[in-house]
């Protein structure tokens, strides 16, 4: 029952959220060593069969599932059973965690030190912790934190240790294992490692899924993984990956456990450690391979102030209640349960829907800082009149306006209650002084380290392209903060843009437009599949509630005072609209026969840089490879671009007519109806 409440509130304002406690406060006042060595006796799952990491492995090796797949592989490849078995053992060896309390204590000690220097506070909702504690005893628990930083999983384990809760086992990407010593340390603190891609490897999949299921079913420990699959470089939630979710739900479908509790956890950073790293990565500077020495170099971050972290443990979601009336478990009755089977259509769509709901739950409980609003405003006000930036007092006024708006939209905003707005604004700005500059009472993004070069002064060796990229780093960093608030404004913004592009005020037409945009952007944002009507209604409801819109039986009308809101909302979505258009234009103009998927990003980037430098494009943000990838994915999904399988790996075939019409529709030059037809 409770789990359903997470999703179904009509009015987000009515949502009651828990209060936070700062756990660093106690760390600052008592001994870290004593803390690390204290008695740790967590409550455990009531159905727990106590087992060590080693026995776990042998349980996996002896499972029917694995036996079946091993023999299948032998039959298919003609390899000897022993040989395959050996491979299985080594896969498992490579994968398995070796959770050790002593390592955890070591981390508890060092992380206490590190956290205290990096962060002002780490705030946790203790009611969420209590709910989790309850859930752990009753059913196997899966922790689903959001993923914005490397910090996330260390932080999670640290928190659970702090609250005397069972330490999780964490699915981590294999790239960590490259970090010699650290990889092993992580292993001993509960991480198990999975290869990034093992699509066709039946054996690997079998070992992996059996390993996770065994831990889950035994109640060995909560299983933790990231629904988004990887760290979001943009601070937007990523389209959820279904593999692991499928695995942890499977024991429920097959009746092997009574229920599984999924606990979405939202971790919000006031300042992300990897801030500019991500921006560089999005701009095409490849991410440095994780290495121990890299980590040590990262030490300089220790001297900076990263503000506070908020961790919100959401309502546990029962898989059983999610599945009620949606999944017919009888479908598993006719085949022995140990024989691996591709999930049926209905299971797949159920898992997919659940994944979206969970990511939405993560989003909704993300704590937003005032800076997030400021970043949104600054990005929209880079140029006003002749002057760059925006006056400080005007920024403050706008921020207050936006604060109220976002609260009405149900944002989980942490705006200090009893501080004057101007102080809130200036302290936010000072924390992010790497990104903004205040001069002559005006606030602007810190673009160009030296400021605009005086005429005549030699521009040194910096090419315009390099300068553009260095500005883009700042803008993308800033955009990543704005993105934290996107989920709050997304639905109203889609509606605002739909009103903007629709050719009339007819409700049906606005809806068509809305539905088109929503469809177009469903790789970009978290939009639950099949929820177009609900989203439209929610958007109308919010805009009507705030007096920005009047919706009658037939028409959708913008009110006088709604103008400001709608301008803000459309501007929020504008970079994305323009980005998608430019990608379309690129595909129409420049795509050759031989364009492969691999070449796509560099080629489109070059195209965009050219346009930016020529002043034909407004938003530097469009340089984000994330946006480019998403738009390609959308076009592929819509069938405007097809991937040719065969000799040339991943050659892209562009349907120019369709891409063209999509571009026009995005630009409002073509009514939606036509685009829909063109798509068909």
């Amino acid at each position, binding site marked *: 029952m409770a789990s359903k409440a997470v999703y179904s509130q009509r009015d987000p304002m009515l949502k009651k959220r828990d209060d936070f406690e700062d756990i660093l406060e106690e760390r600052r006042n008592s001994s870290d060593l004593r803390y690390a060595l204290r008695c740790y006796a967590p409550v455990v799952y009531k159905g727990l069969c106590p087992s060590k990491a080693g026995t776990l492995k042998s349980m996996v090796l002896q499972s029917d599932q694995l036996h079946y797949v091993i023999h299948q592989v032998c039959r298919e490849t003609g390899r000897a059973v022993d040989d395959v078995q050996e491979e299985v053992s080594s896969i498992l060896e490579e994968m398995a965690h070796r959770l050790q309390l002593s390592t955890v204590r070591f981390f508890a000690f060092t992380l206490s030190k590190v956290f205290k220097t990096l962060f002002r506070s780490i705030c946790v909702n203790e009611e969420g912790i209590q709910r989790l504690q309850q859930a752990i005893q009753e059913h196997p628990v899966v922790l689903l934190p959001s993923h914005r930083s490397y910090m996330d999983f260390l932080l999670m384990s640290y928190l659970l240790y702090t609250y005397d809760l069972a330490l999780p086992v964490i699915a981590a990407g294999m790239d960590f294992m490259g970090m010699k010593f650290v990889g092993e340390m992580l292993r001993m603190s509960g991480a198990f490692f999975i290869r990034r891609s093992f699509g066709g490897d039946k054996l690997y999949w079998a070992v992996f899924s059996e390993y996770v299921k065994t831990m889950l079913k035994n109640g060995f420990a909560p299983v933790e993984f990231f629904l988004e699959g990887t760290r979001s470089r943009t601070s937007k939630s990523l389209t959820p990956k279904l593999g692991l979710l499928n695995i942890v739900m499977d024991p429920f479908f*097959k*009746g*092997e456990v*009574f*229920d599984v509790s999924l606990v979405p956890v939202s971790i919000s950073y006031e300042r992300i450690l990897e801030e500019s790293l991500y921006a560089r990565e999005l701009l095409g500077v490849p991410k440095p391979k994780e290495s121990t020495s890299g980590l040590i170099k990262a030490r300089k971050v220790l001297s900076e102030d990263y503000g506070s972290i908020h961790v919100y443990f959401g309502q546990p979601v029962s898989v059983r209640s999610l599945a009620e009336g949606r999944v017919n*478990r*009888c479908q*598993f009755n006719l085949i022995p*349960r140990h024989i691996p089977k591709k999930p049926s259509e209905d299971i797949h769509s159920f898992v997919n829907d659940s994944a979206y709901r969970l990511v939405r739950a993560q989003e909704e409980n993300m704590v937003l800082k005032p800076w997030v609003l400021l970043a949104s405003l600054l990005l929209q006000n880079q140029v006003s009149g002749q002057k760059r930036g925006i006056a400080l007092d005007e920024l403050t006024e706008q921020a207050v306006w936006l604060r109220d708006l976002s609260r009405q939209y149900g944002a989980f905003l942490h705006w200090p209650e009893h501080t004057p707005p101007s102080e809130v604004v200036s302290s936010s700005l000072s924390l992010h002084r790497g990104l903004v500059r205040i001069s002559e009472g005006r606030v602007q993004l810190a673009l160009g380290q030296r400021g605009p070069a005086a005429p005549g002064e030699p521009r040194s060796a910096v090419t315009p392209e390099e300068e553009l990229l260095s500005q883009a780093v700042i803008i993308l960093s800033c955009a990543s903060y704005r993105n934290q608030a996107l989920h709050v404004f997304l639905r109203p913004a889609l509606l605002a843009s739909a009103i903007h592009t629709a050719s009339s005020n007819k409700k049906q037409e606005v809806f068509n437009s809305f539905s088109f945009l929503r469809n177009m952007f469903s790789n970009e944002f978290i939009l639950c599949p099949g929820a177009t009507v609900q989203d439209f209604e929610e958007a109308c409801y919010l805009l009507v509630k705030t007096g920005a819109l009047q919706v009658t039986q037939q028409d959708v009308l913008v009110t006088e005072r709604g103008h400001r809101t709608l301008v803000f909302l459309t501007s929020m979505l504008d970079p994305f609209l323009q980005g998608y258009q430019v990608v379309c234009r690129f595909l129409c103009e420049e795509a050759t026969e031989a364009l492969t998927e691999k070449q796509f990003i560099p080629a489109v980037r070059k195209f965009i840089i050219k346009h930016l430098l020529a002043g034909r494009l407004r938003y530097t943000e469009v340089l984000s490879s994330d946006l480019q990838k998403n738009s390609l994915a959308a076009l592929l999904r819509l069938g405007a671009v097809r991937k040719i399988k065969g000799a040339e790996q991943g050659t892209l075939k562009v349907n120019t007519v369709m891409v063209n019409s999509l571009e026009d529709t995005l630009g409002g030059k073509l009514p939606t109806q036509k685009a829909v037809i063109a798509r068909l």
Partner: protein
Amino acid sequence: MASNSSGGSSDRQRIAQQRLRIIAGHLQRPVDGDSAILAAECKAQGSKPDTSREEKTVPRRRQEIMKWNGWGYSDSRFLFNKKGQAEFTGKRYRLSGMIIPGLKDWFECTFGASLQHKTPATPLLNSSAVQPPTLNEAFVEELKSTGIPFSQDAEDRVFRAHGHCLHEIFALREGKFGRVPDMVVWPNCHNDVVKIVELASKHNVCLIPYGGGTSVSSALECPPEETRSIVSLDTSQMNRILWVDEKNLTAHVEAGIVGQDLERLLNESGYCTGHEPDSMEFSSLGGWVATRASGMKKNIYGNIEDLVVHIKMVTPQGVIEKSCQGPRMSTGPDIHHFIMGSEGTLGVVTEVTMKIRPMPEYQKYGSVVFPNFEQGVACLREVARQRCAPASIRLMDNEQFKFGHALKPQVSSIFTSFLDGLKKFYITKFKGFDPNRLCVATLLFEGDREKVLQHEKQVYDIAAKFGGLAAGEDNGQRGYMLTFVIAYLRDLGMDYYVIGESFETSVPWDRVLDICRNVKARIVRECKERGVQFPPLSTCRVTQTYDAGACVYFYFAFNYRGLSDPVHVYEQVEHAAREEILANGGSLSHHHGVGKLRKEWMRETVSNVGMGMLKSVKDYVDPNNIFGNRNLL
């Protein structure tokens, strides 16, 4: 009590007596045969009922010896005496007349019930609350001319309007009656039934066959929408063994005979059928056939479908039977399988030829304690794999073990109680079994003595591999006794705000543990969500083993104080539990049948085509729905 089934000397004595009986049976056979032939001649006149066969259990007026609003014999019931101790009245059972000291505490602790809070039943049947009968005068007139006894008495009718589902008994205790049959007829033989069915067809009267009345599937409920006159056809007077064929080891029996009579009469000539469902005191042969019943000792004797050689059934289209008694035939789909499980929707089973066996020379109970349920199930699975299951093997979970413990009668000697204490100490302290996790399997071995002992060793050896410890014959025997008295216990519970019921399923081996855990958990959760104030008793046992799976029995009861509509809550929980069973790969029913209670799941159970097959059989055999109890389909 301790010495009558065990101990070498008494055994020898018993066997000797048995042999004597068998021999005597042989000597008497011609006489028996004569009487059987005599009996077979239909004495439909029935003017002097029951005087000639006092040995038969079931009189026409059942209410003379049985409760009208509860389980079993009127003289046998549990009650809390003035001292607050539980006792079991009457003289019929081993437990009769005994004090059961542990029951009160168990009852109060398990259910949160209190002896202060009573919910007594309406003591007397108020005939005026029963709807007056809707009679089909033409049918009644013609029936009168046949001389077949019938009745329109309210008590007779009410008695045949229900089985033993919770909601049925609950309503009776409150003195509420829904639609009841309009009259009751007591055919005396096959030909009587033929006449009745002909008349019913002719006058469009609805017939509902009634055997022992122990149904727990709402099968006997009169469909409220039925507008025709409903006639309950009580087979209880068709209760003779017509012949025994020792060469082929078969007996031809009228279908109205109840289990205990059948066994007793056969035992007199040294035979048995070995078919012992828990309800065998009251359930009838015809009922077993109509519901596909299963007996406790099916491992040796088989279930009803294995025991039946020939069936005669009267349908509106005429009599259906096979032309010979061949042990197996390849003659298209077995028509017996249209009859078995038809639940009274096609006709009345009148006579059955059944396999019989010589009575076993030796019987021995046993029990094994396991550290936990998982080990117990693993052991049963291994026993089934090796196909060495004793006549009966059942595994109770921890809650049921405690329940069984609470039913221990007062011990007569200090020595026994000392011994019990020692046993307990050995198991929990010395062997380290957790008293809140351990569970017990009860065993029954049958056969000749040597083989039984050999068999016993084999089973105990397997048990030992799974951590099982032999725990004595007494525990085993008490476990089986429990099945006969548990239905009486429900009546006791209902005197104190506690309602409950059992239901069953069959499930593949690999799912046994999962289904037990999930269904029990579902029950607990549903109770909580539906506002039950006290934690329910939710327990199970594995009662039968097969090559490919097992039969699992769930007991479920709760204290309903504070609920406005406890029966509705109960039904919702049971419904949810059944959904859980199906979702976990369990069957709709192992042997209780479908009736009207589980009808809604039939289609998904047998598929659309299967449903169509069954429907078309019904449409051919009974186009006018004379057998209109509306079970199954």
